């Protein structure tokens, strides 16, 4: 039996919380899903978004006459260019990614465990062995910091923060921070450290929907949005 699901923050608020970690001058790659929403919260910041399709400094989503079929982001959405945007081929794009030039990658996940392993590329419940791996494993291998942004549990209340992954891993031990609709958790060699909880919740509430035993940071505080 699944523990009782807790109603958390909307996806946009998870994205807002992640955006607080993004500093001026950073080169950032945002994965599909909640990570893509982070771009809505960094306007005005001097941040360079990298799209693995082969673009640096992607702008806002394009509408109407601004749509150019030769200008999409890695989520296949039409985007705008900015002054200083550049384009390059896919080998150069993954040279950037694999070579350690991306300061922060933010990815979605199906599951994550206490060691910072995470699963995000293949859901065997669909009855297929392989999935859409895309650039996720390269981003995990290469980004200086890897953040996960996801809902704390599935829609049905199943746990996603687990002791052992049951879905195929995307990467081992690479995640440093986890941002959910309920909490902010740091992955450390000692285990998962609870840093922030949603307003109105207690650490105990968060623990109730988290399989690994959480270490409560003495400075654990309410998520500021």
């Amino acid at each position, binding site marked *: 039996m699944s523990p009782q699901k807790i109603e958390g923050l909307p996806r946009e608020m998870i994205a807002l919380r992640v955006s607080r970690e993004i500093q001026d001058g950073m080169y950032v790659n945002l994965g599909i899903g909640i990570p893509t929403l982070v771009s809505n919260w960094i306007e005005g910041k001097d941040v360079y978004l990298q*799209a*693995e*399709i*082969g*673009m640096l400094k992607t702008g806002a989503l394009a509408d109407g006459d601004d*749509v*150019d*079929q*030769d*200008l*999409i*982001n*890695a*989520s*296949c*959405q*039409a985007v705008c*260019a900015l002054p200083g945007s550049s*384009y*390059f*081929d*896919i*080998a150069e*794009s*993954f040279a950037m*990614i*694999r070579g350690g030039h991306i300061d922060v990658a933010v990815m979605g996940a199906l599951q994550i465990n206490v060691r910072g*392993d995470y699963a995000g590329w293949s859901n065997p419940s*669909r*009855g*297929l*062995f*392989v*999935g*859409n*791996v*895309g*650039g*996720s*494993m*390269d981003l*995990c*291998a*290469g980004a200086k910091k890897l953040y996960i942004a996801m809902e704390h549990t599935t829609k049905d209340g199943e746990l996603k923060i687990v002791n052992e992954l049951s879905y*195929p*891993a*995307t*990467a*081992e*031990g690479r995640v440093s921070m986890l941002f959910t609709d309920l909490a902010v958790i740091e992955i450390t060699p000692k285990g998962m450290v609870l840093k922030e909880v949603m307003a109105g919740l207690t650490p105990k509430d968060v623990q109730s929907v988290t399989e690994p035993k959480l270490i409560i940071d003495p400075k654990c505080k309410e998520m500021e949005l």
Partner: protein
Amino acid sequence: MDKVLPSLEAAIADVKDGVMIAIPGFFACGVPRALLQALIKKGTKNLTLACGCGPMLGAADELKQLTLNGQIKKVIDSYGLFRSASKGMADPFEQAIRAGKIELEIYPMGTMAEKYRAAGAGIPAFYTPTGVGSVMENIVNEIKEKRTPKETKIINGKKYVLEYALQPDFAFIHCKIADREGNLRYAKTARNFNHVMATAAKITIVEAENIVEPGQMDGDDVHTPGIYVNRVVKVERPKFAITID
């Protein structure tokens, strides 16, 4: 040396049954749709399509036709082309995968990019950190029996996987501008896999939205030098639906 040919038919005349063709494109962007349509017309069978990021989603009509015609033997890609559960089950390509009629081999996208780059650059194999700690330490195929472990090596205390160059027989390339000697320029994110695939293939065939004379492109602004290009054909600018599902 004028590399421009009068028709797509002439350009793909020697594309025979059983060959491997590199198909660039990132979802709906930079996909050689005109060449794919010519391939459907020609009816070439038993093909391996070497892709990189689901270009056949940007050529969904062509994928459907190639599948229904039974022209595809195998697809190599980072993006398995799987749609949402509901749409996927209704899709002829996904049905063919599930039925074992089309083989699917999967690599991380950066590894795909590097495999083509290596083939073009005469590098037979390279080590990469990508995929370590995942099932990508094996050859990953829908057919589990074909899965075999890849070689690994510890370098400076870190584990890496050995990956090999991938050299297709042909590359079908889409570009914005070609000159008659095969120098190419791409538009924005439509560049994606086009350049590395042009370098990787034994024979590179280009569909170009525009053809100019040598010298009309500045030498510092050439994206793919003509040495990698065998044939060029002028095509109309295609229309892509920008969506991945």
